[in-house]
């Protein structure tokens, strides 16, 4: 039963990831990415990471809705009503990502992974809380500073109104912003650390392909998100199959979730600033130092 669920969800996760770069409609692409994340979230639920699984579902729904807002704002053809291809170096990107997948898969299958140490605590989330308030306090505080920095930086980059317009009547003549547009249950089922890592590698490779081949900055960010999705799965797999007794794996997943959100906020802020300054939202037009 667990094996069936794992493989079914793995198929959804990878298929969703691939669909992101295949479908024409940006709305469909974003929700394909969301499907991939939801499948990853349920995979985490399967290995007793109830909190992190629910958290991935919660956060990813919100983040993908924000993602789709920016997609529709910046992409020229958000509904895919006109066929249009916005990729560069497609073959190279395919070759690199396929190569990376093969290399990762070989590594995964050949590495003698350590035996499982300890077993999951009775309340996994409680364990995580204790770690965050105890030995992992520094992680949380550093992330707090990073969040603050992200808020300030994204506000600086993305807003243009400043603080002094509050008491002035909104001037209609003012130009508009140019934004238009476990080794454990091996007997019961065949889900192992290797399968988790293979799924992670597949997601990572699909994301890498997207990050390398897409021209639009927002689509590149979708690729990066998919790569982090792979990290989430790998972190969860390591926790369950290698060291469920400690909260390290859980903290890794938490950090990955946070990094993803901060990356999105900064990414959108940069695209907005770039778009306002130069009217471009594709990487090829944003280079300054090219001859």
């Amino acid at each position, binding site marked *: 039963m667990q094996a069936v669920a794992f493989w079914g969800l793995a198929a959804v996760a990878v298929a969703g990831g691939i669909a992101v770069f295949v479908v024409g409609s940006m709305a469909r692409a974003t929700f394909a990415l969301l499907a991939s994340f939801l499948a990853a979230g349920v995979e985490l639920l399967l290995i007793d990471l109830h909190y992190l699984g629910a958290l991935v579902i919660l956060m990813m729904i919100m983040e993908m809705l924000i993602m789709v807002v920016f997609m529709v*704002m910046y992409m020229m053809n958000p509904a895919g009503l006109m066929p249009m291809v916005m990729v560069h170096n497609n073959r190279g990107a395919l070759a690199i990502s396929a190569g990376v997948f093969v290399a990762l898969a070989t590594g995964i299958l050949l590495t003698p992974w350590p035996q499982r140490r300890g077993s999951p605590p009775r309340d996994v989330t409680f364990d995580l809380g204790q770690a965050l308030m105890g030995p992992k306090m520094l992680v949380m505080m550093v992330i707090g500073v990073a969040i603050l920095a992200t808020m300030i930086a994204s506000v600086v980059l993305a807003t243009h109104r400043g603080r002094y*317009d509050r008491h002035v009547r909104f001037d209609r003549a003012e130009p508009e912003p140019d934004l238009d547009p476990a080794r454990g249950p091996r007997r019961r089922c065949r889900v192992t650390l290797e399968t988790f890592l293979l799924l992670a590698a597949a997601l990572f490779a699909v994301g890498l392909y997207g990050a390398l081949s897409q021209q639009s900055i927002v689509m590149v960010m979708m690729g990066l998100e998919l790569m982090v999705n792979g990290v989430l799965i790998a972190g969860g797999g390591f926790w369950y199959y290698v060291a469920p007794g400690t909260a390290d794996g859980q903290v890794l997943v938490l950090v990955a979730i946070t990094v993803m959100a901060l990356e999105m906020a900064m990414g959108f802020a940069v695209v907005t600033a770039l778009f306002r300054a130069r009217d471009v939202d594709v990487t090829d037009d944003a280079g300054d130092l090219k001859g």
Partner: protein
Amino acid sequence: MQPYLAVLILLGSLGIAIAAVYILSRLLAVPGVVGVGPFLSGGLPSEHAVSRFHVRWYAVTMVFLAFDMEMVFMYPWALVVASIGVKAVVEMFLFLGLLMVGVVYAWREGALRWA
């Protein structure tokens, strides 16, 4: 009964109910589709609604993305306050205080206004 089985049964029943609605409508409704355009109070559309759409509150989304990460830490924190004590409360509210600085800054810069 296993909880996941119960949830699957409930989901299946809901699926059957929704399918029944669509099938009943197919059987009972007046056939065909009326109208070929969106409702625009009688006006004609000049472009697809699903074109580029600029929302004015984009700055709020970025502050939100960063700020809502505090939840990631607060849910597990809520479980351990009673067992860890003062240290946990001080740590969390320092963290939240840092984040509130960012919110106040965003507010002062007008990031939460758009109209």
